[in-house]
């Protein structure tokens, strides 16, 4: 039983986290196409590439601006929506709820298109030119995303409001508060945790949104848009390093939240005021029985040592070595294939035309440097035909790494060697 449970957990977490781990590893491997195996050289150059990639950096900037705008708009609209829900005539409540929740169920693509069309109409009606702010990508994206993110926020607020004692507002009114004062001093502080959750939720939803944004971004592509475009035109491991950074940030964020919560619980359990425990950094006590904190410390140590290592370590030596190795291997391969071709020519001459030359060529399959089955099929073609055609065909046909990695490599190496890098 225990064994099965363990196995299940391994499979489960492998399924959840495996892709992230693999992707992170590819960010530290030197080949120009992201892949984890075969491992060549440990490198940090992709972080540099990422940092110097104007489009990515710009995309992050736009994503942040849009994210902040969406948070503000969605949280305000979500809160207003949830408050109306508590005030509305009970018979209308269910209908109202359905209407306000509907945007979550509508496909993001539809929301994107309708936002675009709607504001374009408004723009025309108001007689503005096509470069007015109503056509601004940031403006449209914030509005478009907020249409459904506000509904998420509303759900968060509704959950919190259900636990609110209306008597508290009444008590405030009874003591002479105006409605605005009662809202500001009683309801708003009560909703504060929900505001935090809704803001985080809204930001994440905005940051990762693609299908609505793709219609509205105009001149301001967000990170997701940039990434999608990159994938379309071929990617390099700097994307993996970005993924790695995002994963690390998420883990650090989640862990610090967890630690804060634990401390607070600890404080309450001990009957001490919260500030007394959350105020100072009390590592030893904190570490006791707190796995989250331990992981955090390990992560921090790991992070620092990585940075230190990165500043000292240079992958150049390793790379040259690998390159030499590859070149030798490549040469060998080329020779081999040429040899085979010659043999084949001879066979053709003997047996007449053969359509599937590669099929009858077990040697190629076995000895191709990549593992993928495609590799061997394409290999001879690539060598026959000119380079560029061979490289575009597989990358658009098959975005997987393993399957056509070898093709890429041969190409790259060939070019590199030719240019005498």
């Amino acid at each position, binding site marked *: 039983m225990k064994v099965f449970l363990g196995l299940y957990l391994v499979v489960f977490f492998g399924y959840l986290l495996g892709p992230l781990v693999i992707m992170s590893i590819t960010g530290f491997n030197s080949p120009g196409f992201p892949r984890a195996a075969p491992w060549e050289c440990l490198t940090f150059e992709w972080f540099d590439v990422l940092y110097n990639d104007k489009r990515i950096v710009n995309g992050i900037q736009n994503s942040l601006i849009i994210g902040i705008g969406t948070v503000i708009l969605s949280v305000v609209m979500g809160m207003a929506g949830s408050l109306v829900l508590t005030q509305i005539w009970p018979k209308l409540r269910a209908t109202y709820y359905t209407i306000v929740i509907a945007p979550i169920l509508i496909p993001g693509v539809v929301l994107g298109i309708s936002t675009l069309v709607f504001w374009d109409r408004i723009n025309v009606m108001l007689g503005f030119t096509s470069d007015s702010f109503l056509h601004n990508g940031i403006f449209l994206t914030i509005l478009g995303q907020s249409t459904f993110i506000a509904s998420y926020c509303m759900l968060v607020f509704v959950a919190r409001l259900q636990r609110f*004692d209306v*008597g*508290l507002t*009444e*008590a*405030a*009114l*009874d*003591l*002479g*508060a*105006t409605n605005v*004062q009662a809202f500001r*001093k*009683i309801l708003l*502080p*009560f909703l504060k945790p929900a505001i935090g959750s809704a803001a985080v939720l809204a930001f994440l939803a905005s940051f990762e949104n693609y299908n609505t944004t793709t219609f509205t971004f105009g001149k301001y592509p967000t990170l997701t848009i940039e990434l999608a475009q990159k994938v379309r035109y071929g990617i390099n491991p700097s994307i993996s390093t970005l993924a790695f950074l995002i994963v690390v940030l998420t883990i650090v964020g989640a862990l610090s939240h967890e630690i804060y919560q634990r401390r607070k619980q600890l404080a309450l359990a001990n009957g001490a005021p919260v500030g007394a425990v959350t105020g100072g950094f009390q590592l030893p006590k904190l570490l006791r029985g707190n796995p989250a904190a331990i992981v955090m410390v390990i992560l921090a140590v790991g992070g620092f040592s990585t940075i230190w290592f990165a500043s000292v370590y240079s992958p150049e030596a390793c790379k040259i070595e690998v390159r030499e190795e590859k070149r030798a291997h490549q040469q060998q391969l080329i020779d081999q294939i040429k040899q085979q071709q010659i043999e084949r020519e001879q066979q053709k001459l003997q047996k007449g035309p053969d359509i599937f030359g590669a099929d009858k060529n077990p040697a190629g399959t076995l000895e191709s440097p990549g593992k993928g089955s495609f590799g061997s099929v394409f290999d001879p073609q690539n060598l026959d035909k000119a380079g560029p055609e061979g490289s575009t065909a597989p990358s658009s046909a098959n975005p997987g790494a393993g399957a056509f990695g070898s093709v890429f490599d041969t190409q790259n190496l060939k070019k590199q060697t030719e240019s005498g890098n």
Partner: protein
Amino acid sequence: MGAGVGVELKDVWIRFGDFVAVREANVNIEGGSFFSFLGPSGCGKTTILRAVSGFLEPSDGQVLIGGKDMAGIGPNKRPTALIFQNLALFPLMKVWENITFSLEVQGIGAADRRKRADELLEMIALTGQGDKLPSELSGGQKQRVAIARALCAQPDVLLLDEPLSALDLKLRQHMRTELRQIQQRVGITFIYITHDQGEALTMSDRVAVMRHGIIDQISDGQSIYDDPSTPFVASFVGENNVFRGKVKSVENGMAVVSTNRTGDLRARIGGAAKNNLKAGDEAMIFIRPEAFSIATDTGNTGNQVKALVTNEEFEGQAYNVFLEGDEGKQIKMSLVNQGKVRSSSMGKDMTLEYDPEQATVLPKGELASE
């Protein structure tokens, strides 16, 4: 008394849809007095209080505070402060901030508020506890904070909605005295709501007894107890033995009722029935347990009840003797403990007698337990 601000309800009806929560309430509450609404849960007490504090408008009729019609005036503009049934202390504010909330919304600075809070904390015997959160206080302490918070607003009328119901017995009795003292000290009108007749009788100048939306009787505590005006009041306030029957004769404010099993019983006609009860009417006789004594001369009729003793219990200040009464209901008699050893009369017939002046005849009506 008389100096404070009075409250008046004139023909007040309160309806929720088809449901009538308060029916034709006419109440005149003298300024500076301690007035209680007493009634079982769900009879509309809170609803009346909410109409006075402004959280709901009567469907019909008027609420006047200090002679002024309150129609259209919101709760934050009325000179009332309400102590909620669940107290409704602000959980995220410290005790002193809770107490001075009414000052905060007037824009009074923190230093002044703190000073006022400390004065009030001293009054409610919670000196030095101002920086705690409400969740860190005990039930009785929360109670007092709620009172201080309401008093801090300097209302003309303080409304209290079953404020002691969540406390344990000892604390409840202590807080009764304390509340009464506070009321006498500050001299404002208190309107107090409770389903506990002990609270209503001990604290109030006047009590209104309610039964599902209807006010049956408004009177001082003693009149309510000694001279109930309806069978409901008679059975709800204090303990009472009930005997049913038909009126046989009426004279000089006294009536003789022939009961099914206990024979003829004589008693004073109570409440508004004095002038219109006549022979042949269905009636009920109410005799308090302490009004009974053991008959010395068993020959009399009209003020004696003979029944089988089924149970006896010793309660400290009293012996309770239970006898088999009408329709399976038991008759209870309480004898003051005078320190003499009594011999048991279990299983024997016993004849009880009472003073007809202390018993009440009322036209047949609804009882509290029914």
